[in-house]
């Protein structure tokens, strides 16, 4: 990770100069100023031997599970397990902060579950964890998010024996 991609202060370098100022103008105090340097974990074996977990803020969830709380003013700090074997028709999206029209026609555009299965079947990656993990990105308490949601997902992912993670914001 370079300074450009890790810094959040306007004087510390950023990929899109002025972005933080713009966001802070609309949502004062909302930006996370993460000072800790978190090194990327090196991949220790070929991709074709790695078990992949997908972590997504798409709000995709199995039908019949408690809908993500899209109306709460401070956010939803829960996550859902989505079986990596799930069929698209068994999934639904609860998220109001991004356009879901296309994803409702083909969920793979936001949650590429079938594409990832294809990569596993073709041997490009070694396999998939039993579950993928989803939540919604509207969370106004980053400390709570880190302490609960992120930690719980990290524990679950570790227990599933993931070697690599594909993390995708919606």
């Amino acid at each position, binding site marked *: 990770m370079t300074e450009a991609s890790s810094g959040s202060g306007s004087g510390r370098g950023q990929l899109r100069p002025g972005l933080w100022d713009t966001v802070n103008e609309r949502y004062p105090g909302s930006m996370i100023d993460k000072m800790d340097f978190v090194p990327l974990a090196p991949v220790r074996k070929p991709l074709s031997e790695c078990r992949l977990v997908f972590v997504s803020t798409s709000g995709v969830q199995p039908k019949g599970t408690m809908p993500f709380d899209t*109306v709460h*003013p401070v956010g939803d700090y829960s996550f859902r397990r989505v079986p990596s074997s799930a069929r698209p028709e068994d999934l639904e999206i609860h*998220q109001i902060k991004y356009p879901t029209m296309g994803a409702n026609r083909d969920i793979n555009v936001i949650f590429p579950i079938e594409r990832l299965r294809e990569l596993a079947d073709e041997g490009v990656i070694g396999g998939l964890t039993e579950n993928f993990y989803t939540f919604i990105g509207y969370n106004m308490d980053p400390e709570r998010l880190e302490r609960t949601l992120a930690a719980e997902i990290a524990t679950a992912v570790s227990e599933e024996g993931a070697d690599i993670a594909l993390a995708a914001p919606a």
Partner: protein
Amino acid sequence: MSLQYLKDAVAAGDREKLIRYVRLHFGDGNEEVGRKEIDKAWSEALKPLLDVPPTDREFILETIRTRDAATLAHLYFHLHFYFVQRSGEWIHDGSL
């Protein structure tokens, strides 16, 4: 706005900061849109009552009497989106 920013506003009695946050939340980041969304929800809530149909006041009073403020506040936010959706003028990109 961070949670601390909002808690500081509560401590300072700065209602304007709080309502601005609510407007931004309802307006997907656009305060003026959020203001109109609040108006839309209230006008939509008024419509079904104009003919004074029977309503379940027992449910209402029982709910208010027996549920905690946080649950009622949560319900209040749900009702906003319910009436906005009922209006047929949905401005949000996604769905509930």
